[in-house]
């Protein structure tokens, strides 16, 4: 369960404060996969980062006893000079995995990411698709309560996208996911509930289809 209590978040800009959230109160019940919708700049990624505790509300609190993955975004952060294998090992060690666990995670990620020889080459030689494959595989091999996924599913070729979606569907039998996406189909396939962010407000819907409808209404009204 995740509770947001009076959460206010803004960014300072030349023209004053830009509010992402204004006094938002929200409860995400346990065992629900949530899709987060909103127009560009509405604060989807910021919300992910706040849940991953690498961005902090200006006011209010986010309370949860669950563990969260790092936010998986398109621009993943690996050490460019180190090989894929060394980077995977690095993250495993950060999470306190023992040698046996590290070994099995490396095997899994190597197989899942389909990097072959590239796995033992420096990250700087990777394409962006290869990086997100590595990062996606890596996050799947940890047992978090919540996976925070920001657009990552939209990379790679069609075949890999299918494989990633399938792997995620298997994974969410054991954990939950908070997913940011612009592809309604994937959101509807994976998530039960939805949150729509708009103009500093956050609306929670028990049914993802309602969230998608509201989001599309907002889109239409903004276009007119």
């Amino acid at each position: 369960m995740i509770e947001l209590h009076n959460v206010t978040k803004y960014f300072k800009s030349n023209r004053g404060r830009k509010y992402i959230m204004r006094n938002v109160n929200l409860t995400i019940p346990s065992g629900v996969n949530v899709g987060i919708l909103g127009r560009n700049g509405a604060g989807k990624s910021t919300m992910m980062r706040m849940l991953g505790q690498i961005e902090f509300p200006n006011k209010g609190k986010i309370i949860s006893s669950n563990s969260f993955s790092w936010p998986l975004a398109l621009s993943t952060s690996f050490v460019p000079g180190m090989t894929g294998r060394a980077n995977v090992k690095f993250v495993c060690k950060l999470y306190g995995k023992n040698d046996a666990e590290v070994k099995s995670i490396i095997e899994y990620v190597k197989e899942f990411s389909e990097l072959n020889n590239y796995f033992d080459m420096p990250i700087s030689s990777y394409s962006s698709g290869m990086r997100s494959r590595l990062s996606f595989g890596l996050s799947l091999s940890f047992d978090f309560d919540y996976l925070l996924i920001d657009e990552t599913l939209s990379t790679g070729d069609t075949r890999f996208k299918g494989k990633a979606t399938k792997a995620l569907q298997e994974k969410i039998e054991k954990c939950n996911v908070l997913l940011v996406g612009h592809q309604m189909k994937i959101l509807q396939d994976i998530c039960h509930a939805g949150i729509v962010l708009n103009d500093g407000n956050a609306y929670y819907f028990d049914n993802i289809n309602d969230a998608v409808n509201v989001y599309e209404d907002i889109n239409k009204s903004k276009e007119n």
Partner: protein
Amino acid sequence: MKKRNPFTIYRAVISTLVLRELNIRFSSGTLGYFWAFFEPFLQILTLIVIKVAIFGRSDDDVDFAVYLALGFISFNMFRHIVSSSANAFKGNRGLFIYRQVRPIDTIVSKVFVELFISSIILVIFTAIGIYFGFDLNVKNTGMVFLAYIWLVIFSFSFALCVAIISFYFINFKKIVSLLIRVMFFTSAIFYTLHSLPAELREYLLYNPMTHFMEMIHGYYFYTLDDRYVSYNYMAIWTVALLYSGLWLYRMLEKRIISNDRTP
């Protein structure tokens, strides 16, 4: 996911960062390990040769090769810790997406890495010194060790302040490198403080590093002492830097994690 206690997490983070730093440092080229130790060795050797060639082998009855090596190893450690910290928060930004990694950890791990490297260099130099029959007897090993540890704490405090200021002022690192250069020439590394005129000596003693160097030298060599060292002055610098560094860090940690540079 299994809950880990804070100390276990902290230890995992620091040891991982240290290994990563060593990995990066030593994986540069095929002779990474070799260069990591040979480069400072070459620097020190060059200076020793120049010094001995110009000024003769000794004054003040001190073996100058040993004197130089000692000062150089200590100052290099300080220099590496401080100069790398200017980029510690910006350069490691990617690591902060893992929430157990806190910005200050990058500096702590850097300190451990430099401590490790300088110890290895010390061992290599000792081995060379013994082989060539230098007099390596130490007057007071305990006090030299204490001075070295104190210098590590001082370097950390200095580095923390530099890291925080550089986070807001990107060009601060240019000032830092200039400052380090000035400190290098005024720290009694390749001359003894005792051999200088009294008026000049007075100015050099405003540099806290001079006191550290004099303390190390004074307790290492039988023929030198710590008569110019002001332990109060060293303590004031250390406490002031450490306190203001930690205080600023506490206030700004969240901003540093989320890369928020707004005032």
